[in-house]
């Protein structure tokens, strides 16, 4: 089967993504969208930020353009650049510009990973000006009403170097995400991975144990995403302890002692 190629701005989500609301985040997002306010998603990795964005894109029926930020991401990577084609230079829009042009949702994932000077290009888009200056083209792109800017940020890294500047963060409506409650997480794990309720219960219990270890050697506990992975392995006939080792323990740490400890926790639960 061939992989399906899509232009980013054609990326409509057709099928309803599975998403369980934790609180009133859907209502807040919709209200912010209606009032053309940009949105900041805060929370640890794997707790459903990206899934939430997909769900909202489906709900609002707007194309979703996701950019995963990295420390070499320049402003041109977002806005666009001239390329050489057949002896001529042609302008190529970057993902942010494309999203503005079509009035889509631009989601900048892990925004703090991007360089600080890159982040400022979104400033005029993120306040009431809602414009994207394209210096190289000498143009100013005005965002249509249905354009939406969303960024995500994980405050858990607690690194001074990876903090969001006040001038950036104070432009956004913030939605805080955390691991879902035990009840909800159980439901998510069961429905996403297909394991039965009892197994989902144990997986969630195990995940909470690893989250207790945050700060004493673990940077972050097991995310819901990892639990779903483990659940899928278990559903595929893998022994639960082995599944947790492969899908969870090895994913959260490389430290031998910590691996052993997590292994002891999972062998105790199952």
């Amino acid at each position: 089967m061939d992989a399906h190629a899509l232009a980013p701005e054609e990326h409509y989500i057709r099928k309803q993504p599975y998403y369980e609301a934790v609180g009133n985040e859907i209502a807040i997002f919709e209200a912010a969208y209606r009032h053309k306010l940009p949105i900041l998603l805060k929370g640890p990795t794997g707790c459903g930020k990206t899934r939430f964005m997909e769900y909202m894109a489906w709900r609002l029926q707007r194309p979703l353009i996701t950019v995963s930020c990295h420390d070499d991401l320049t402003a041109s990577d977002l806005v666009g650049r001239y390329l050489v084609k057949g002896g001529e230079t042609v302008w190529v829009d970057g993902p942010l510009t494309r999203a503005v042009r079509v009035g889509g949702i631009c989601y900048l994932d892990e925004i703090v990973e991007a360089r600080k000077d890159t982040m400022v290009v979104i400033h005029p888009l993120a306040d009431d000006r809602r414009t994207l200056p394209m210096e190289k083209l000498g143009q100013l792109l005005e965002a249509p009403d249905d354009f939406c800017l969303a960024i995500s940020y994980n405050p858990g890294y607690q690194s001074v170097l990876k903090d969001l500047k006040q001038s950036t963060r104070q432009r956004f409506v913030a939605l805080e995400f955390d691991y879902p409650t035990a009840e909800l997480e159980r439901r998510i794990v069961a429905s996403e991975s297909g394991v039965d309720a009892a197994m989902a219960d144990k997986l969630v219990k195990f995940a909470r144990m690893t989250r207790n270890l945050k700060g004493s050697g673990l940077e972050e506990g097991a995310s819901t995403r990892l639990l779903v992975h483990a659940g899928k392995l278990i559903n595929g006939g893998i022994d639960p302890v082995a599944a947790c080792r492969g899908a969870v323990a090895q994913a959260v740490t490389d430290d031998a002692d910590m691996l052993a400890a997590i292994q002891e926790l999972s062998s105790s639960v199952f």
Partner: protein
Amino acid sequence: MSEARAAELAALLEDWLEADLTFHKVEGLARELAGLSREDCDFILGWIKRIATTHLELGWQFGRRAPKLLASMGRRQMEAWAVFACDTYDRVGLRPALQAVEQVENFADKQLELTAGVLFEDVAGVLGNFVRGLSGRKLAIVQGEAVHTDTDKIYLPAVIARLPDMDDNFRLAKAMVALLWAQTRFGTFRVDLIEACAAFPHPSRALAQLNALETLRLSACIERELPGLHRDMERLKTALGDVLPPAWQRFARRLGEPDASIEDSLRLLGDAYQLPDFAAWCFQGELRPDAVAGAFIARRDKEKARLRVKLAELLEEQSRHQPQSDTADAAQPPAFEAEVDDSDGRLELELTLDGAPVAPPEDVRQLLTSVWLDFGEIPHDYLVPAGDGEYDASLLGEQPVDPDAVWQGTYHEQGALFYPEWDMGRQHYRKNWCVMREKEVAPVFDDFARATLDKHAGLVKHLHRAFEAMRDENRLLKRQPYGDDVDIDALVEAMADARDGSEMSDRLFVRLHRAERNIAVAFMVDMSGSTRGWINEAEREALILLCEALERLGDRYAIYGFSGTTRKRCELYRIKTFEESYGDVVKARISGIRAQEYTRMGFAIRHLTDLLKKVEARTRVLVTLSDGRPDDYFDGYRGQYGIEDTRMALLEARRAGVHPFCVTIDREARDYLPHMYGAARYVILDDVAELPFKVSDIYRRITR
């Protein structure tokens, strides 16, 4: 021949064991050793010498027994035994160490312990994380003589070796830890056990029977909570022949119900007291109500204070987010409520403020959990946010201990950090051997810094220029395969090439290179007595110039001085931390650097490596500045031992990703330096006067 050899050995032993003072009769031992093969003899001699540096009596007692045992024991075992004795001495002192040596007669039986047993050091790390992962208070695992918990710490013995298989022994240790955790988690200590047992004719017997009842109850809790672990525990019981006596079965049934609590155990205690003593199960520890009471008293007020202050902070934060509406009754103070859901072993906390749920920060959650574990509820007065200045700071945090005060009165190792030291003779680390404290250098506010800058005015100008030139700047890189803009020059050239028929380059872009110098460096300065005089002077001048230069460069740097007398008093003097900025205080501290005592280096390297690891930087550098070989007057540090330890510490630093670099002014250093600094690069300065000129220059070269 043998006589001559015996006399030779006797002389050695007399020397090592200081026989003229200790009056040990070494001649017999010498004769015995002379009768052994040369290799065996050397092996034992080596160990006697090494142990004697730890303690004379220990060395003697070891020597007396060693020759007879070597044949049956083998060298590996004997080495393990010797190391075990030394470790015991390092940790708990002479008497237990002598016991360890004396019990060597049983050591043949104890082989099990060494081959299959798990040592505390091996399991503490993993089980520490294991128990922190379980819900409840974060318990620490420490070594103690009996298996018990005081509700803050879990005590485990040095060796656990009841089973012939190492894995099983580890499982046993894990089961012990889990049961003790269950005691704190499921409320064993929520009633006064001393009082409850006092009613019986033999309170200690009552306590033991109660312990058995609790073991039954908690095993059932563990079965519900951690079924995998419970299966292991059952296997261990079977392997060691632990049974549930028929008379106890009805207790087990009652206490196995999910709603059973310590109250139920107490209700059954009367009946259980009538029964014969319960043979403790393998993973069962002891109940120590007195230790628990002590820990509780120490914790109670502190936690209440901390919780209330934290809640006050939380309240302030909440009200900042949601400005109080005018309709709210101002007279009614806001009330926190805490709800704990313990059903199904879940232990979930819900904190509400005036009925609206609040997400408590991690530290508040911990405190609430701890309070709940103690009381089974959150008492109302714990939830009243503290008023301004209601508590003095002493309750709120661990108070830093004044490093000098601990030397007054009884000696404590309170507030100190412990570092291991490599013992070349033992070929093992001495665990927690160096007692290290950070101290302040008393600042001397004089015009030393100014005078230095004036004195070296020409050099300063040069340094400024040189270091400024090193500041990597943003620059446009041309002819890149990928970039932000088209490189027109390259494009024109490429087009011409294409017309020409030759190959066209794809490097057509310009890219902005952003230079981020990301270096953290720690300077470790010798403050030993031998630097007294103008080495000290030169060091101080060098530091002033270095700071001037580094300020230009913008690298993060810290400066520490090291010195010490014996392992018990290793001192690191803070001159500038990474966070501090270079100002008058730092200048005054540099001026205040005075020669202190000896040159123990290992601990300083290890500590600064730890500090460097905490700094976020791409490159970490540790520069040591010393005037010679490591030296300390006691416990055999002088000479080879010190060199080997320093070498080891540098290797550790390298392994941790720190680049060590050593600057030394010892002219006779060329013989041992290559070995000692094996892991590090180094320079030797022939003339102290060069130091101020050279140090900055060296730094520039190594970080370029």
